[in-house]
């Protein structure tokens, strides 16, 4: 069984994915509303895994909900909270429920989240998790044992930060992720598309699909906050000025316009294979961003 997301990646179509954060608790109403709204508009939805190390409903549960509602999930899995036994078990469970797209992340430190004294696991790293997926697909586990059941056919991905400083160590890791089996790569949020273009000049040599990360800007302070606090995110001053100059109450409209404009350029210039839209709690705006980019589902 090939996932519909993998088929879309292989089709050469311009790919659109988005991101959903499961709730802190078991009230899934808002998540379900967003899934319902987006499932037929995007190729796949990422379910975040305790993003920023804040404890939430599990990404696996969110991915299952997407699947049950007829959408296409991308299961985010970090190596922060589970050792290799637990990661493999969750991959088997995911496969058994038709959840085949997995984004492999090392994960933020627990110190960045809301359980600051917890033990960070990091038994595996992102590249080793990718390799684990490829091992399971051969019917084996990391202990060398045989799996009882048809080996799952996953679509594995990872991330890269094109504007990391220094960039060279990141690119070595990027190449190792591809060697380990990454089929698609989502980038950290990019705002300077000339730099993204330069990155793609390098990345094109590898057999991997690249989705440019787009984070919706909602205000000038939010942009400054990201510049200060998120590694590898650099919102150019011109964009901050543009959103700051928006009329009162119009910052989000301006943010949608900026995101739409960026996606439009990426699409028109065939800069990369698609985009991954992160609206961070405002997922209901994804259709408006797509409309602003001139994209139809």
């Amino acid at each position: 069984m090939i996932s519909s997301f993998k088929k879309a990646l292989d089709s050469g179509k311009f790919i659109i994915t988005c991101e959903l954060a499961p709730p802190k608790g078991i009230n899934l109403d808002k998540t379900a509303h967003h899934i319902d709204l987006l499932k037929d508009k995007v190729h796949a939805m990422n379910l975040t895994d305790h993003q920023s190390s804040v404890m939430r409903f599990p990404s696996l549960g969110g991915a299952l909900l997407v699947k049950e509602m007829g959408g296409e999930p991308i299961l985010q899995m970090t190596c922060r909270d589970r050792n290799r036994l637990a990661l493999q078990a969750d991959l088997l469970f995911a496969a058994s429920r038709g959840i085949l797209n997995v984004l492999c992340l090392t994960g933020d430190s627990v110190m960045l989240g809301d359980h600051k004294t917890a033990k960070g696991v990091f038994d595996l790293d992102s590249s080793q998790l990718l390799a684990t997926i490829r091992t399971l697909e051969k019917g084996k586990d990391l202990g060398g044992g045989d799996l009882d059941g048809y080996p799952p056919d996953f679509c594995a991905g990872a991330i890269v930060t094109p504007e990391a400083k220094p960039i060279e160590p990141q690119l070595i890791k990027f190449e190792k992720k591809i060697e380990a089996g990454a089929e698609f790569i989502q980038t950290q949020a990019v705002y300077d598309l000339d730099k993204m273009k330069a990155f793609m000049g390098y990345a094109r040599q590898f057999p991997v699909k690249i989705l440019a990360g787009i984070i919706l800007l909602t205000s000038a302070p939010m942009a400054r906050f990201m510049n200060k606090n998120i590694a590898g995110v650099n919102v150019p001053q011109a964009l901050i000025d543009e959103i700051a100059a928006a009329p009162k109450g119009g910052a989000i409209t301006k943010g949608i316009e900026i995101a739409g404009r960026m996606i439009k350029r990426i699409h028109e210039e065939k800069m990369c294979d698609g985009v991954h839209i992160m609206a961070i709690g405002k997922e209901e705006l994804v259709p408006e961003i797509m409309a602003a980019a001139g994209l139809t589902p």
Partner: protein
Amino acid sequence: MIRSITKPKSKEEIHSLLGGLNRIYIIGCGTCVTLTHTGGAPEVAAMKEALLDSGKLVTGQIVVPVACDNLTSEILSEEIEKIEQADVLLIMTCAFGVQTISSQLKRMVVPALDTLFIGKETASGQFNEICTQCGTCVIGETGGICPVTNCHKGLINGPCGGTNQGKCEIDSNKDCAWTLIYNRLSELGRLDSMRKLHGPRNFLGEPKPGKYEMAKS
């Protein structure tokens, strides 16, 4: 030189650990804790003052040369009367010293310090962890810089996405080990070493509790 790096526990924690015990014998050490100023003669004297001020009775105090040495028991045997008058030993050494003394004297002990790591002084008053004794040394492939110790996540395949301007995502005062390793391997013309994809680590090089017997020749 390799050192045990310690920091003082808070007064509140020490008070809580001492509980209702009022007669206290204090032991300091003349080695690692003199470097960190956490358990040498001046700190032992200050601790005595603080305890007296809080109404405790100090039956005696000593700064042994090397608390973790087996000879410590002989030195302490000369103090045995004062030690026996005490309800508890308050020990201002690293945990190695506390455990050595506790096993030698078989008396209730309270550590006055937290042992942070095994490391060295890299600049005046600044201490860095060097080795976590993992039992599966990887530094032959990382230019002699240990990612198991110096990377917050102990990653062996390169940096995570949280690295920023050569610093760690948890603290901008801490270097990103993988930036250091990249720079070192780059200088040595050995970046090929960093490109090697490593499989999962063996986290049980020496399963806890560590115990090693030399092979008989």
